[in-house]
């Protein structure tokens, strides 16, 4: 960690001092010259040696910004949310680690919902269309999103990428959009993509300590699907310990234990999704937008 220090203007911070780090006593470098400029000439901070600048010297001016780092993403996510609400579409952002079973679960989900709801999938696959091919064969509209199209990351979907996917779906023909995020337990939790609800698919093969290691992801989920429950007899996995760990980071999440492989418990997940889709429909008939992410 960096060195903690206090500036004359009262701000306190720390930052890494790598080899070319700033020198607070060298006003010509990228040091704290701005503090004197901030004083507006009244500070009387004499003795600044700015060296020979051949008739010019550089001063600094502080510009207050006070913008959220992901403010642009959040604005675009709100746009996605309004777009979906305007079409009466409910949306669920499905997140997990790689291999937890998102695609297998969706392969069971789409046929089960097909008679009641029209389902679209925005599929965030980094390099292949394997998952998208599986799902489109089942009758869902699928838009594969290239994850290099957004803010520059490949570890998550952001609002720009999801919008690119939504623009390729026929929204007038949909009731529910499932956004299958990139397999990753850290980054997707930070990026609002405009979903109504966040679902997390967790597999018991990952170990019961995962909620404690990735608390932000587990905290963000409205529903936690506990997958691969059919493997319980074959694993040293303590389901009660997992539930207790989850409760420490997210005491209010709906927990659904199931096996995408055998189908055990999948009905509860289908019911949860169906309730989302019905809520999306009724929200569209009252007011467009307004339903927040959290």
């Amino acid at each position, binding site marked *: 960690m960096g060195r903690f220090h206090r500036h004359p203007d009262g701000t306190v*911070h*720390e*930052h890494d001092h790598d080899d070319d780090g700033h020198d607070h006593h060298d006003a010509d470098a990228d040091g704290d010259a701005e503090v004197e400029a901030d004083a507006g000439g009244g500070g009387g901070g004499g003795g600044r040696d700015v060296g020979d600048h051949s008739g010019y010297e550089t001063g600094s001016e502080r510009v207050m*910004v*006070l913008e959220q780092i992901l403010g642009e993403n959040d604005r675009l996510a709100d746009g996605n949310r309004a777009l979906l609400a305007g079409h009466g579409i409910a949306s669920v952002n499905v997140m997990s680690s790689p291999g937890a079973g998102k695609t297998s679960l969706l392969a069971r989900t789409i046929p089960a919902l097909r008679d009641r709801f029209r389902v679209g999938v925005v599929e965030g696959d980094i390099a292949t269309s394997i998952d998208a091919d599986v799902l489109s064969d089942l009758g869902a509209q699928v838009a594969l999103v290239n994850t290099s199209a957004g803010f520059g990351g490949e570890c998550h979907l952001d609002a720009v990428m999801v919008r690119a996917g939504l623009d390729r779906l026929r929204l007038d023909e949909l009731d529910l959009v499932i956004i299958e995020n990139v397999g990753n337990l850290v980054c997707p939790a930070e990026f609002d993509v405009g979903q109504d609800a966040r679902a997390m698919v967790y597999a018991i093969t990952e170990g019961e300590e995962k909620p404690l290691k990735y608390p932000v992801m587990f905290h963000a989920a409205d529903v936690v699907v506990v997958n691969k429950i059919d493997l319980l007899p074959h694993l040293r996995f303590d389901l009660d310990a997992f539930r207790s760990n989850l409760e420490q980071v997210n005491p209010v999440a709906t927990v659904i234990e199931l096996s995408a492989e055998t189908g055990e418990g999948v009905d509860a997940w289908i019911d949860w999704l169906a309730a989302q889709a019905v809520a999306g429909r009724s929200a569209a008939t009252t007011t467009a937008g307004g339903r927040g992410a959290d």
Partner: protein
Amino acid sequence: MHELSLCQAIADTAVANADGRDVERIRLRIGHFRQVVPETLQSCWRMRRSDGPLARCELDVEYVPATIECRTCGSTTTLDQPLLRCGACDGTDVALVSGDEFLIVSIDVTSALASEEVN
């Protein structure tokens, strides 16, 4: 893991606010609940700033501890790990009151001054 994406967003916001001037320093306020790894953020920033108006720009980050307030007993707990449990009564009905900050506070931009005006 998403620090490079954050750096891109930070760079875009800084340049948009710099009005064509070079940016020397960006001050950020980031909560501990944001999963930002300080060393990774700095190394991603050195990768991202490259040439142009951000070439010499440093990131100053104020990291804000995560604190929770218990709705049951009213206690405030500063978290040393991101587990949402009241330090006084062990309750889990808590609200995060700080630690999710993710703010670009200010930027310091270079202003070239003729020396006659200064002296």
